[in-house]
């Protein structure tokens, strides 16, 4: 049976056989870096195409259908165009920060990749404070966005960046509380342990209604955190031209665009890990035969399937809901999501202490 775990062990054994441990570790680092960069590039291409296709089908259109079979190579062509375009820097912009900002945003995405379990025992860094690491690092992306907005020397960029700052800082709270409900149920911050705790059922089933509420809150909060519609005030094409990346062009713009999709992938991957059991196959009670068949599907396929389902859900939101106003956005967070998530956390704590979950 196909498993990524076997490949990694084989590679490590071979490297340790050929080189001394330090050299082997260095080579492994290089391999990991190359793999994560290629994953980024691939995800950018796939997700942009997926977004355009989903958008088109929701709006009763066909979407890209000219480049390659079914428009498959549309995003490749777009990327080639963006690479060849001139990257303009505005005259009065802060050159250093302007050039640095896209890389900060990308770097946050790359850092977040570290604790995610892509398959059984296939994880870059199984850190024991994984959830805390994720929530702390993901809030760094606001620095990149503020940097981009402020350094552009453009009123639209500045407004977009400020809105983005208010949005990310406030929605981080309810996202954090939603994640905490699962931490309370599991009793661990380590992502691999959270996944292992879901061997006999995913938390969204085991945790009753509070887990479902936490999942809904999580999805709403991360949609806001990744600056996507209906919370795309930071970009708001109709009001701010393009928000914080108004002045960006060429490859720098592509990096921002890529970072948006990488962030979606990462938050969906974390959502899948916490609520849908990560790479854990679907097991139902005592149905031995059914469980056995489910075990035959590779764990990486399970993980990717769940993640892409959540990504589809977020895209579905984007192409259905109208954009919120700033006051509505903050009302939603401070008057609805935060009190509900606090109450929900209390409920989950009671359930976990009394052992009412399965």
């Amino acid at each position, binding site marked *: 049976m196909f498993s990524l775990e076997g490949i990694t062990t084989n590679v490590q054994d071979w490297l340790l056989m050929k080189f001394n441990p330090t050299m082997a570790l260095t080579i492994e680092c290089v391999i990991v870096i190359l793999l994560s960069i290629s994953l980024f590039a691939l995800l950018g291409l796939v997700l942009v195409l997926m977004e355009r296709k*989903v958008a088109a*089908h*929701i*709006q*009763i*259109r*066909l979407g890209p*259908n000219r480049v390659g079979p079914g428009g498959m190579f549309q995003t490749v062509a777009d990327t080639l165009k963006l690479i060849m375009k001139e990257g303009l820097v505005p005259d009065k912009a802060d050159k250093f920060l302007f050039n640095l900002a896209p890389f900060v945003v990308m770097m946050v995405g790359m850092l977040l990749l570290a604790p995610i379990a892509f398959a059984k025992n296939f994880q870059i860094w199984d850190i024991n404070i994984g959830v805390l690491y994720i929530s702390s690092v993901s809030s760094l992306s606001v620095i990149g966005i503020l940097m981009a907005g402020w350094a552009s020397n453009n009123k639209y960029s500045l407004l977009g960046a400020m809105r983005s700052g208010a949005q990310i800082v406030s929605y981080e709270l309810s996202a954090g509380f939603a994640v905490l409900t699962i931490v309370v149920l599991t009793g661990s911050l380590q992502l691999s342990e959270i996944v292992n705790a879901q061997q006999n059922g995913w938390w969204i089933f085991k945790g009753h209604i509070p887990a479902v509420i936490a999942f809904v809150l999580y999805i709403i909060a991360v949609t806001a955190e990744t600056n996507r519609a209906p919370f795309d005030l930071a970009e708001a094409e109709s009001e701010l031209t393009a928000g914080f990346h108004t002045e960006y062009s060429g490859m720098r713009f592509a990096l921002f665009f890529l970072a948006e999709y990488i962030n979606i992938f990462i938050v969906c991957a974390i959502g899948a890990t916490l609520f849908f059991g990560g790479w854990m196959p679907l097991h139902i009670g005592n149905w031995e035969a059914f469980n056995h068949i489910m075990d035959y599907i590779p764990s990486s396929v399970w993980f990717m399937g769940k993640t892409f389902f959540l990504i589809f859900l977020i895209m*579905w*939101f984007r*192409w*259905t*809901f109208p954009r919120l106003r700033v006051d509505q956005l903050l009302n939603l967070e401070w008057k*609805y999501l935060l009190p*509900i998530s606090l109450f929900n956390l209390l409920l989950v704590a009671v359930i976990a202490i009394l052992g009412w979950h399965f």
Partner: protein
Amino acid sequence: MFLKEYITDVVTGVTSLLKGMRKTGYYFTHPKEIITEQYPDNRATLLLSDRFKGEVVMPHDANNEHTCTGCTACELACPNGTIKVVTKFETSPEGKKKKAIDTLVYRLELCTMCNLCIVACPSDAIKMAPNFEHSVFDRTKLTKVLNQPGSKIREGIE
């Protein structure tokens, strides 16, 4: 009381959002609803709406007869001088002189498809046609004579 209002707010909000998602989800899962016309490929079967305004034409019947009396109402109605009616006098067999059109010149490159000439025409001699592939390399090809050569006015049209 406040709590009740709060919960109703949340419930109505969520249900209305779900209603919207149901609609878009229906469209997503039913590709037969797609209305995209893949234009150059489906040229033969392309369907345009009846009210599409592509150019002004003058319908002729099987006897090569039209209903234009040469009253120049269309020329007067046109805001940018697109139509030019050249009239002549025809002598009927009884020796009566009657005004008729020699040529009705229509300059497509000046036309904004505003439909005013069609509205102004008292005898419904001209109408809008759904043709839109008008690009040519030579501008003079856009100046068209709408009445066909040898055509004449239908009997009984005054």
